[in-house]
């Protein structure tokens, strides 16, 4: 058999080639239904092909899904870190927003007194005792500050500088019982003196004393600094009247004032320089 092949190798190859060529010529280019032989062959082979392909794709799927899971865990971690970062940033930004609000309020206050030059400063320390309401700000004589300069915050008057160092100044607020400010009612022009009081300091209020009994001050009136003071310029808002009482002597009244400035939570304040007004 093998010998037969060996002997007629060339002829067989030629015959086979011719046969295949003829077959190709006849079958090529025509859409025919599979022949019986092809069908049989297909019947046997295709399930295996199916199976093999199935296994292949299953392996591929498994591998890729494992890969995916690892990827997803990584992604989740990344996202969580991102969320943390964004939260922190959000908090930082809302702090900035608060600060921005305070500062723009201060700027608006400063623009209300264009005749005076003003400097912003931060509160850095408060009186360690319970008696007085003084604090220290972070600017001093090196920034051109002097004692008796007026301190205002977003809402209104805060107090005055009592002493300046090179890089710090002491400020006495209007709640301090040693402080007194000549003031008047904006509506009626009645005069009085706004003083701090030890019993009201804790609640952030102060007194307006020496008001004439005939004065027509009412609850809700706006109190501003008067023209009589040498330290405080005329017309800086101080606060609102919340209560009115007659003194024991019956000759004068006193009012309880709620300051506009939030004196319990001061962070940034404005120092007004009165001397610049005279130059202009």
């Amino acid at each position, binding site marked *: 058999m093998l010998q037969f092949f060996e002997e007629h190798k060339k002829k067989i190859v030629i015959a086979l080639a011719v046969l295949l060529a003829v077959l190709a010529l006849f079958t090529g280019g025509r859409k025919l239904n599979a022949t019986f032989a092809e069908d049989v062959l297909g019947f046997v082979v295709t399930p295996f092909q199916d199976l093999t392909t199935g296994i292949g794709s299953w392996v591929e799927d498994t591998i890729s899904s494992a890969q995916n899971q690892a990827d997803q865990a990584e992604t989740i971690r990344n996202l969580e870190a991102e969320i943390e970062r964004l939260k922190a940033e959000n908090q930082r930004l809302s702090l900035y927003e608060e600060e921005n609000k305070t500062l723009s309020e201060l700027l608006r206050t400063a623009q209300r007194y264009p005749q005076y030059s003003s400097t912003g400063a931060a509160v850095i320390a408060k009186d*360690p*005792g319970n008696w007085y309401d003084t604090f220290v700000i972070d600017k001093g004589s090196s920034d051109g500050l002097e004692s008796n300069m007026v301190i205002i915050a977003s809402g209104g008057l805060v107090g005055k500088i009592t002493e300046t160092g090179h890089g710090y100044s002491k400020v006495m607020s209007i709640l301090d019982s040693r402080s007194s400010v000549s003031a008047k009612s904006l509506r009626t022009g009645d005069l009085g003196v706004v003083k701090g009081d030890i019993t009201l300091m804790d609640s952030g209020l102060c007194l307006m004393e020496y008001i004439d009994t005939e004065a027509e001050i009412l609850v809700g009136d706006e109190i501003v600094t008067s023209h009589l003071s040498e330290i405080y310029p005329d017309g800086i808002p101080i606060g609102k009247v919340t209560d009115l009482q007659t003194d024991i002597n019956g000759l004068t009244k006193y009012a309880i004032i709620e300051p506009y400035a939030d004196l319990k939570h001061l962070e940034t304040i404005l120092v007004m320089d009165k001397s610049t007004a005279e130059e202009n």
Partner: protein
Amino acid sequence: MRQLFMALVVLVSFILQTTLLQYIEIRGILPNTAVILIVSYALLRGSTGGVIVGLCCGLLQDIFFGNGIGYYALLGVLTGYFAGRSHKNFYRENYIFPIIICAVATALYETVIFVTGFLLQGHTQILYFLVRMLLPECVYTAILTVPLYRLLFAVNEWLELKEKYKYRLF
């Protein structure tokens, strides 16, 4: 070493009292950490140490918050001196004694401030002072004495141990 350390303690205590400790106020009342510091040191080291610490604490407060120099310094020196006189009469490991001394010292300290700074200037709200300011401050200070005294006690113990080795002959 000891001097350096105590200067540091006094400074840190002053800085904390004027900044961070402002947040632990209860209805406007702050504990008097300066008195705690002076009394504790005086009880641990005697009158001389108490006077020096009292002087430093008082001067700091005078410089940054006082009207002139000397008022708080004098108060601090007196507090340190009188607290230091009981140095020899008690066991420093005892906790009750420093608490009582601190409360009494705070009461006297604040009363002097009230009388000189308010009563003599015509602010006669004595009841308000006693009920709303003095009493809560004494209680608050006494409570805060416990951790602070413990801390200073430990620091002092450590310093004394170091000094003992330094002066040992052999």
